[in-house]
């Protein structure tokens, strides 16, 4: 085959040539497809977690980097491995950390319930409306998600501060004389979380409710059930998968939240993400920050992953 002919073939069938080229260097396309993302994730996801675990067992020091090595090599040839459990004992002994964990779970849970109560009627209304309206309303639900999260949280500062929109409006209407203290409270954190994650609650609920079989509701009404009764014994039980999916999408990010408690919460609004941040950036205590991360991983992330696995196993069995 002449060079021109080979070039012509290459031009006509570039993918064949690519496939042959890969095979020639001993790589099947399949192995490459699997290996590229697997290696990336191993190096930039698994190894980092191992490093965090390692540093959580070391001791803080005034050095660069600010912790002591686990392995020390003595001149006489002994290798010493020192594991400090002190960071984890410290987390248990100081009530700050336990309170922060419990408080995060509490705030995330209450926010999820509030978000569910607000989202359900909206999702139901969208699912019941005509096609034309439905698309428009869904677009309105999704639109805030594409704008900056940070700026949406920022909007609430202007809304809730002493001379902010809410206080100015209430005072102008003569409802209150003194501005209410809204910002830097737990209340503001609830508002921020519900506001930020509301679309994530509405969308799975909508996806579930739109599939609801209307004839079941009619049957229930024909049998004499009032609308509330129909809702409680037909609609709500059928929408449980949507409720669970939406709640997970709110609860999980709310647990590790840093930005919302940092901007809207008060100094006593403890959340574990914020504690980790302060431990790292303010106290520069890398080992304790790592221990907080490992504890968070074990107490929060692993249970959630196990729960999701169990759930998807149930779904697959059906």
């Amino acid at each position, binding site marked *: 085959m002449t060079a021109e002919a080979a070039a012509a073939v290459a031009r006509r069938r570039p*993918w064949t040539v*690519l*496939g042959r080229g890969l095979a020639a260097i001993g790589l099947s*396309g*399949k192995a490459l*497809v*699997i290996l590229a*993302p*697997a290696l*990336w*994730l*191993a190096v*930039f*996801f698994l*190894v980092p977690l191992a490093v*965090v675990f390692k540093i959580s067992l070391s001791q803080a020091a005034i050095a660069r980097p600010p912790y002591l090595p686990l392995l020390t090599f003595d001149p006489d040839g002994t290798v010493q491995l020192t594991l400090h459990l002190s960071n984890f004992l410290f987390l248990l002994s100081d009530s700050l950390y336990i309170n922060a964990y419990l408080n995060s779970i509490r705030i995330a849970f209450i926010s999820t319930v509030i978000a569910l109560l*607000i*989202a359900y*009627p*909206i999702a*139901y*209304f*969208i699912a019941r409306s005509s096609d034309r309206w439905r*698309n428009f309303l869904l*677009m309105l*639900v*999704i*639109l805030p998600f*594409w*704008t*900056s999260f*940070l*700026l*949406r949280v*920022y*909007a*609430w*500062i*202007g*809304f809730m*501060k002493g*001379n902010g929109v809410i206080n*100015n409006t209430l005072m102008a209407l003569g409802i209150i004389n003194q501005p209410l203290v809204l910002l830097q409270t737990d209340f503001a954190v609830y508002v921020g979380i519900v*506001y930020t994650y*509301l679309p994530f609650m509405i969308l799975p609920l909508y996806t579930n409710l739109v599939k609801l079989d209307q004839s079941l509701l*009619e049957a229930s009404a024909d049998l004499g059930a009032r*609308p509330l009764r129909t809702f409680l014994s037909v609609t709500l039980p059928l929408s449980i998968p949507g409720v669970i999916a939406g709640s997970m999408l709110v609860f*999980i*990010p709310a647990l590790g939240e*840093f930005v919302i408690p940092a*901007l809207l919460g008060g100094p006593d609004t403890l959340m574990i*993400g914020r504690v*980790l941040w302060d431990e*790292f950036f303010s106290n520069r205590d890398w080992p304790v*920050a*790592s221990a907080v*991360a490992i504890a968070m*991983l074990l107490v929060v*992330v692993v249970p959630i992953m196990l729960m*999701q696995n169990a759930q998807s196993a149930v779904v697959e069995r059906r």
Partner: protein
Amino acid sequence: MRRGWFLPIATVLGFTFLYAPILSLVVFSFNENRLVTVWSGFSLKWYGALFSDPQMLGAAWLSLQIAAISATIALVLGTLCAVALVRFRRFRGRTALAGMVSAPLVMPDVITGLSLLLLFVAMESIFGWPAGRGMLTIIIAHSTFCMAYIAVVVQSRLSDLDLSLEEAAMDLGATPVRVFFDITLPIIAPALISGWLLGFTLSLDDLVIASFVSGPGSSTLPMVIFSKIRLGVSPDVNALATIIIGIVALGVVVATLLQMRRPKARA
């Protein structure tokens, strides 16, 4: 069934809750007063202040570059991952790969950020790479977490795909690589586009991870905004928010109109 009053009212209140803060941001960006929430007249001066602030502009440009590069890397890796998980039913380590790619979805940002920073520090002291932290380390971090989201989007599209098209191409003698580029890729293109946009947005929006892995002189836009608003409200941030909201609203409206028109044209 009689239409109740409860649902419409709850929906109107819900959307008021979602949009009132955003609208107030927009309105007060045109306020002449420095006290953001006290109206004292129309003015565009905060837009002027925004566009003459080199720190803001520099950070915005850096963030846009990082978002575009990260989204592209994440798209390639995420798509490969989705193809591996959906198309290759059985291979050793499949469960591990599936677990690794979905874990970042439930991982709190503070842990992702901390762990990557500690990795970069350790790598630098062992291999001397990456030298210092900055744009490169932020890109690596963002690619990693965006890839998880993109893999989910592409996976769901791939598993809906009609296999017979690919089989037909194979029967006609196309190699697997050619089938992927000629048949599969064009079909999943919409998922790839929305995946890329998702990655771009997530990267542009990230404060926590970037704060951990960035170095001196490489502050992203969210980092600059965060340090500004920690000190209180600032009118030029309102102006910036208005510009972002304007661009996004335009994009979403256009996308929705296109989507609504397509099925009608076919029918």
